[in-house]
């Protein structure tokens, strides 16, 4: 398939997944605000509830370039609809749709229609969307549309390279997101790991689980109160948890393995390495060497993998050199 087409498919999937992850993260932050102040008491001075989404997505400096004050309204505007923020939900929906439009001949018409209608209906929500009463509904819609896009993809796409590159984008973006959420939340909650069962812990760790649709899964698997180590295990090592690092790495490895041709050997090796670390990793070892260090290492590796995919499949210069 055309390198440029593959790249558009990859970013189409990453952007719609990112829109969903933004909606998830903001949704739980927004809901937390409805709880009493005692629950929301920042443990660390930097960990103001509304700073967390900025820190997680690495957009704090971009934010402060545009806003003086840190408050709910500003952060929500910045992350939902500000056109200056490349990762705002509105921009993610727009980019997903633009990428899809460019390669609409390489995806099924259902996939295209799903992203096109999502953008038409939610891509220009207007300032009134930031009202408290409507925001939750908006996040819910964005999540549902992302679910719908994935469902339509799985349900209609031919299992060829278009599909593999699309799925590659989905899982690489998701792995990145889960690792970031876990890292930031863990930092905030770290000072009180012993407060098992405390109300604050319950809500804070609970909100983390909810942000990745893992609250019910946690209860089902562990039948226990919320315990940081088990949360980490669920979101890092459980293969059956669709937003865990392990699940994402396995999918990435499998998709890369199915892309044919004489390219991508190095990307495949990196993905295999990443997958093996998760497959044979133990949560005790991760905590011994430090969860934060572990997650930073993981993020570095997925970043490298993304760069490798770009280099081997998308960058045109290498292809021309190979012909010579």
């Amino acid at each position, binding site marked *: 398939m055309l390198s440029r*087409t593959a790249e558009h498919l990859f970013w189409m999937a990453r952007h719609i997944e990112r829109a969903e992850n933004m909606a998830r993260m903001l949704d739980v932050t927004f809901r937390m605000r409805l709880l009493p102040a005692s629950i929301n008491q920042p443990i660390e001075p930097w960990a103001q509830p509304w700073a967390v989404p900025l820190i997680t997505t690495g957009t704090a400096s971009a934010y402060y370039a545009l806003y003086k004050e840190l408050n709910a309204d500003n952060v929500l505007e910045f992350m939902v609809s500000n056109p200056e923020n490349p990762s705002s939900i509105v921009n993610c929906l727009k980019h997903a749709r633009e990428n899809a439009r460019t390669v609409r*001949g390489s995806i099924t018409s259902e996939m295209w229609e799903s992203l*096109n209608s999502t953008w038409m209906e939610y891509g220009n929500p207007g300032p009134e969307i930031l009202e408290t009463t409507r925001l939750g509904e908006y996040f819910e819609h964005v999540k549902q549309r992302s679910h719908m896009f994935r469902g339509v993809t799985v349900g209609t796409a031919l299992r060829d390279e278009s599909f593999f590159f699309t799925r590659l984008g989905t899982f690489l973006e998701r792995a990145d997101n889960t690792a970031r959420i876990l890292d930031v939340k863990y930092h905030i909650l770290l000072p009180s790991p012993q407060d098992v069962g405390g109300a604050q812990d319950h809500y804070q760790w609970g909100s983390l689980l909810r942000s990745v649709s893992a609250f019910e899964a946690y209860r089902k698997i562990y039948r226990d109160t919320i315990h940081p180590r088990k949360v980490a295990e669920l979101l890092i090592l459980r293969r059956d948890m669709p937003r865990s690092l392990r699940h994402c790495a396995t999918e990435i490895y499998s998709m890369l393995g199915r*892309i044919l041709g004489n390219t991508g050997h190095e990307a495949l090796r990196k993905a295999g390495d990443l997958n093996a670390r998760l497959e044979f990793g133990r949560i005790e070892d991760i905590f011994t060497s430090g969860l934060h260090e572990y997650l930073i290492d993981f993020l570095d590796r997925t970043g490298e993998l993304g760069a490798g995919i770009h280099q081997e499949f998308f960058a045109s210069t290498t292809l021309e050199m190979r012909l010579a």
Partner: protein
Amino acid sequence: MNAAVEAQSMAYDELHGADGTIHPAYRSYTEWLAEVPPEMLQQKRLEADLLFRRLGITFAVYGDESGVERAIPFDIIPRIISAKAWDTVGKGCIQRVKALNMFLHDIYHNQDIVKAGIIPEEQILSNPAYRPEMKGIDLPGNVYAHVAGVDVVKVSDEEFYVLEDNLRTPSGVSYMLENRRMMMRLFPDLFSKIQVAPVEHYSDMLLKSLQAVAPASRSSMPVAVLLTPGAFNSAYFEHAFLAQQMGIELVEGQDLFVKNAVVYMRTTEGPQRVDVIYRRLDDDFLDPLAFRSDSMLGVAGLLSAYKAGNVTLANAIGTGVADDKSTYVYVPEMIRFYLSEEPILSNVPTFRLSRPDDLCYVLANLPELVVKEVQGSGGYGMLVGPKSTEKEIEEFRKRILANPSNYIAQPTLALSTCPTLVEEGVAPRHVDLRPYVITGQEVSVVPGGLTRVALREGSLVVNSSQGGGTKDTWVLEADAC
């Protein structure tokens, strides 16, 4: 749009025909229409608009910074053409394109038509669309215009005139296909009542033709691609649509490169050789090394690969010389010269003022005629008799007399009208028709084509950029007796 259609007084009414009764082709449809509540039609119109938007069947508006995309207005009332009338139009278009392809081959080789004294040499050599680079190059099957759009206007029950030929990169065929799909979705009952000739096989025909013109050495499993200027081109939807329908890659200039006079595309599996390029990019932008050096859209070295016979371009480079206004007047003679046949379709009657008889007639009838400079374009250097003052006419008369051979004249000719759904209900609006002729191993045309309609009352401007819309064009499988 041809300026000869400026006036509308004598427009042919397709619904009522010449004698004022409902034309037989429209009988079944009007019976159906009489039964339908008006609000249902308006409802269907809204539904169509919504569907077109959701499907993203839109075009970008140039110069609009906000990147707004618009859907071309679609009229839900079909334009109906009898089997008999179509028989003439279809055969006439095929005949015309055959002759035009032979003409193109001739002028880039022996120039027999010049030697025979039918077309003056300077008519060809001084034409800016004539490409000296093409001289002596042999193309597979001697085909130049693989895809041609012949714009015609209906002037009586059975007669069509050709307004112009489009042999460069004619567009609009995706609307022909999507309009049919939309009509079948909106009015399935009508299609069981009225037998309409299908058009969906257009993309198969096109693919087959593209494969048939691959370089001879590459003819077993040729790789065809569609070259687009990119996602910001106003016709991008059509490019993506056709590539998808044919199952070929939609490429931009940056996806292709030339090495040792062979064209490759950059794929995830490495370079892949390309044999046929259905290009929707003008000649000037194709190769920055050969033509406009500032083109960011083309492929450096493409012309060298083309000249070496390693890749086929569809359409060929240099077809523009055959489709401009000054060449148009010679097409009937081309048909006689190359095919030894009489033209099936007429040109709009054209007077060449280099002929004394024609000059005499034209000077006596200036208020009724449209007079144009042979080399002029876009309405420059033109007299529209019925819309001009006496003074303007007299001034133009002097210009003609100074150099008669620089002018042609045509009667003012109106686009025919078809019933169209507008705010007030169903009313006549002016339409034209563009059938698409495909040339590969053989020459073929799908029944119908793209009908463009001027939605404003009295307007003759059918261009989508100026309030024009489109209609589905129904060619009847068989005429009722």
